[in-house]
């Protein structure tokens, strides 16, 4: 086995004696395009609501909870799906998030939150991780749709107007500071 590996390793660093330079260059380029396309397609396939709810933990818990909320059921038919809030849009942050998500694959394989009870027991930790993420990026995923500059405060209720002009506009708070538990149920808030 070691010898076999050593042979291939040496072959890798020797000039090609059989294939033409053109074949290797163009072939390498084409293979690169195909690989990149496949990689991105697969990546995007994991960024869909359909993919999220193939897992019963998502389908039976959080997906059920979002359905009566304004982000799922509303008068105008605009719907925020899982990745709209939980996956960053730009590439660098998306890849960073995907790397973190490898822990979720671990959880999936080892059934960390496989039952409703396990999920509820771990819910606070999971929610707090998501809140910390949104706090750190200044609620970027909220702001992808809810842009402060596009908000007409005069169309908001008195309370909303007060809070938004006093705390959001001045940057003292970010969306997630107040709007927790709007798309999913809250965890046990009394428990530390």
């Amino acid at each position, binding site marked *: 086995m070691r010898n076999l590996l050593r042979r291939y390793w040496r072959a890798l660093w020797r000039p090609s004696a059989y294939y033409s330079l053109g074949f290797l260059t163009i072939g390498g380029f084409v293979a690169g395009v195909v690989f990149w396309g496949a990689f991105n397609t697969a990546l995007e396939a994991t960024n869909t609501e359909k993919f999220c709810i193939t897992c019963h933990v998502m389908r039976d818990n959080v997906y059920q909870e979002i359905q*009566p*909320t*304004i982000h799922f059921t509303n008068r105008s038919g605009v719907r925020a799906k899982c990745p709209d809030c939980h996956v960053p849009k730009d590439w660098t942050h998306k890849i960073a998030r995907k790397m973190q998500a490898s822990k979720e694959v671990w959880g999936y394989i080892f059934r960390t939150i496989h039952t409703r009870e396990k999920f509820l027991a771990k819910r606070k930790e999971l929610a707090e991780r998501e809140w910390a993420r949104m706090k750190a990026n200044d609620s970027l995923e909220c702001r992808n749709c809810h842009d402060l500059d596009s908000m007409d405060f005069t169309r908001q*209720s*008195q*309370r909303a107007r*007060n*809070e938004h002009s006093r705390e959001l506009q001045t940057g003292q708070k970010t969306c997630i500071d*107040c709007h927790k*538990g*709007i798309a999913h*149920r*809250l*965890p*046990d*808030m*009394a428990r530390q």
Partner: protein
Amino acid sequence: MKFLLALLFCASAFAQHDPLRGPAPVDEVGRPAPLVNAENNDRKRTRSYAMQPPTIPHKTDNYQVDKYANKCLDCHARTRAADTQATPISITHYQDRDGTFLADVSPRRYFCEQCHVVQMETKPPVGNRFRDVDQLVRGQAKPPAKK
């Protein structure tokens, strides 16, 4: 006599119908009234009597009140009042049934919407002859308006 009774029965059957069901026959399902949004103007309403739980002057759609969290207390808790300028819950809510004051909301007062409810701008389906005690005491009460 039997005839009279039958006549009375028929007359009452034609004259009355359940205001909540509407005029739908018993073997059919009535058409429910259209849903309306809850009042959201943040203006306190008059209490109809001194002990009436104040009504909620804002929307409470999807507010979570269960053993995990209480959305109302996010603003109406004693400790949150300064930040939010919401009316803090009254001292009675800290008493248990023996009148002992607790450090936090009494479990029997935890489910806000058992008593406090949102208001909707709709025509009441059932008439109401309730009169405020002030009106009764002062004798200024007008006869209840016909609806």
